[in-house]
């Protein structure tokens, strides 16, 4: 009897330990987008280097599950994927905003995912054509109302649209947002042929065009990156606390620009193993070299930090959320 109890105890003790041994197993990273995009690229780089930091060197594969701006993937990871420690998921960084604004189709609670961390922060900047007379953000305030700057955008929910929208609505900069361009590349062409005066977007995607002096960045969102530390932050010009809160809310998810989670209920030991591997892999020398070549600027944000951002974001007074929903729609 004693022996039976002991062996039972041993099984319970050993189970979580066994969960951390990945020998012969396959870890799947579910990506909420098609092959070839930014989220997919990051996932594939991680998949190549993650095995060496997990005991037993498992296979790590990427599974694309596109649709509904990755809501489908997030719903899948939350409700259907087995919490056996073999599933990782990555999705649109703005999904917490979808939850906050009660978008139909959200079948998850961001706070209850097992947060592994984020692989990058993405800062949004507004860049305008270099030949325009406006050189600083102060100049931007002088843009006349009858001749607003034309800002090309893809659509609501994308940073190409939401970031300039708040500059216009809350800071009173005279901008005219023209949306419907198929991709940010098409907006750059529009800028080049002077159909548009500028565009907002992630700093990484704008770098090549800033480097060849087509556009210059004038203002950025809260998350910073090397090269734009000195740019003024949109929130710092907010006329009141309400406006500041709304701008902060829009940019909050950017700190966790490439979020990685595991299904709720994943055993603590498996989450811990993955967190440690995740923290170490992003500092991996080979991974860094590879990411640099792909123009991916990766930096590690811990799971606890990510969860803190999520909690703050979802813990807003109702009036702020209502006001926020007036401007920002989840999309893209």
């Amino acid at each position, binding site marked *: 009897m004693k022996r039976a109890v002991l062996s039972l105890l041993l099984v319970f003790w050993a189970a979580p330990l066994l969960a951390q041994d990945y020998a012969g197993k396959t870890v799947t990273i579910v990506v909420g987008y098609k*092959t*070839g995009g930014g989220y997919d690229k990051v996932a594939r780089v991680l998949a190549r280097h993650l095995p060496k930091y997990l005991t037993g060197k498992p296979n790590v594969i990427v599974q694309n599950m596109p649709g*509904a701006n990755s809501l489908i993937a997030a719903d899948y990871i939350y409700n259907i994927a087995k919490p056996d420690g073999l599933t990782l998921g990555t999705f649109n960084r703005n999904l917490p905003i979808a939850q906050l604004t009660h978008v139909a189709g959200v079948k998850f609670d961001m706070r209850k995912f097992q947060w592994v961390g984020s692989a990058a922060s993405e800062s949004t900047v507004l860049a305008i054509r270099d030949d325009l007379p406006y050189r600083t953000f102060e100049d931007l305030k002088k843009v006349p109302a009858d001749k607003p700057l034309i800002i090309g955008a893809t*659509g609501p929910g994308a940073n190409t649209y939401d970031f300039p929208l708040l500059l216009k609505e809350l800071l009173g900069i005279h901008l005219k947002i023209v*949306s419907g361009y198929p991709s940010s590349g098409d907006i750059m*062409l529009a800028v080049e*042929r002077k159909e548009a005066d500028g565009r907002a977007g992630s700093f990484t995607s704008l770098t090549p065009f800033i480097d060849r002096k087509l556009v210059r960045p004038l203002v950025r969102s809260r998350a910073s990156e090397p090269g734009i530390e000195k740019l003024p932050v949109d929130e710092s010009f907010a006329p009141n606390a309400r406006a500041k809160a709304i701008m902060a809310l829009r940019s909050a998810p950017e700190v966790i620009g490439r979020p990685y989670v595991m299904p709720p209920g994943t055993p603590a030991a498996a989450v811990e193993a993955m967190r440690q591997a995740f923290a170490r892999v992003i500092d991996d020398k080979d991974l860094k070299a590879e990411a640099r070549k792909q123009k991916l600027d990766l930096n590690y944000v811990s799971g606890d930090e990510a969860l803190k951002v999520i909690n703050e974001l979802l813990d807003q007074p109702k009036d702020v959320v209502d006001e926020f929903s007036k401007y920002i729609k989840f999309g893209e």
Partner: protein
Amino acid sequence: MIEALFQGLLQVLAWKPLLFMLIGIVLGFWVGLLPGLGGATTLALMLPFIYGMQPIEAFAFLLGMHSVVATTGDITSILFGVPGEATTAAIILDGHAMAKKGEAGRALGAALSSSLVGAMIGAFALAAAVPIVRPLVLSFGSPELFMLAIVGLAFIAALSAEGGRGMLRGFTAGGLGLLLSMVGQDPQAGVARYTFNTLYLWQGLDLVPVLVGLFAIPELVDLAVRGTSIAGELPVGKLTKGALEGVKDTFRHFWLTIRCSLIGTFIGIMPGLGGSVAQWLAYGHAAQSARTAEERKGFGNGDVRGVIGPGAACNSKEGGSLVPTVAFGVPGSTAMAILLGGFFLLGLVPGPDMLTTHLTVTFSMVWTIVLANVITVTACFLFLDRLARLTSVPAHRLIPVILVLVFIGSYTTNNQYADILVTLIFGAVGWLMVSAGWPRAPFVLGLVLGKIAENYLYISVARYEVAWLTRPVVVVLFALAVVVIVYPILRARRLARREANA
């Protein structure tokens, strides 16, 4: 420049790039044959393999693979009526009709030779566009792109049957296509349109399951009902004979081949129009070339010109879509967007530099497209007999295989079961359209161009109010659209008069 042109060729012909190109070709060959597994996805998956390579080797590998996909996609489309790629659907209309008449060999011969000519012209355009590419692309703003979409929609007139009834059906089908292109979240206000609260429809209908359903399912039903092989009871010997005839057809209609190649190249060069538009415009243009009412009726029932047109355009657009990718770093299609990632991996910055400092690399791409197509087309001709013979396999053996291809093809686009449902629904739609004599091409044209037309119209009005209507290129394109619509009506009238006189 001439020196760089030859240097490009020599560098591609070195043993390593050539070897990588051959590997790419073998890969692309299969990707093209299998429906659903698209060229763009494969490019993304192959990207990591280029880490250790030199730029010319890497592009020989990637472009070699990519330029073959469109060619072998034609084969699946012609033989089975299943679009091998989203970009090779238009060729089904006449190509598969020919296969059913026992002319699979001739259809394949025509498709392959026109593909080769198309690829050459596209590659040549890439080389020739080098000095003028910037002003050319920059002269096409949103208003011009909108009018291009309108010209595209005007081709519905050419794709419909003659007479008032035919036109009415054609434009109704086109309107239905336009309506379905509106499904999904709109990019101006972010409203979800016709999504019925499903997540699946949020980003609109995916083209691949729609096309596979619309074209493959009716053919399968037809095949099952007939119970014979695709080519009916025709003797085997006859099937394979026509390949040379098909090649001759391409040269018999050489100007059509050239014109359709130019259409493809032009659509390729214009970023923001997407890869699947070119084939339909080329098909519409080919249908326009019918001189008599009798000939016009032959389109859709196996006119070889309906094979040559899309065959040429589909391959020429690849060279074209490299132009904005190389010169501006703005990709002309999804596949090119992924190729752009390849540029960064290799430490190359697309933009003006590619036309000066790295000109050799740019020209090596031109040569890769040419060589890869020559190799593939030659290889295909070796297997052509066997391929064409597939159309004499009895239905009960063929149908299960094609069904598997159809469902895997539609499922792999998004890994969602809803894709299969969409395939089945549009299969029913396609079957109804075929049996009621409604043309499917205008429907697809509406679906493909709807979103483009809507977005660029919105941008044009928001940006320029009404002033865009007087831009010279807009006026010219508008006149062109009117001509495209009125021409078939005038021709029908002239024919009627001539017949009355006779």
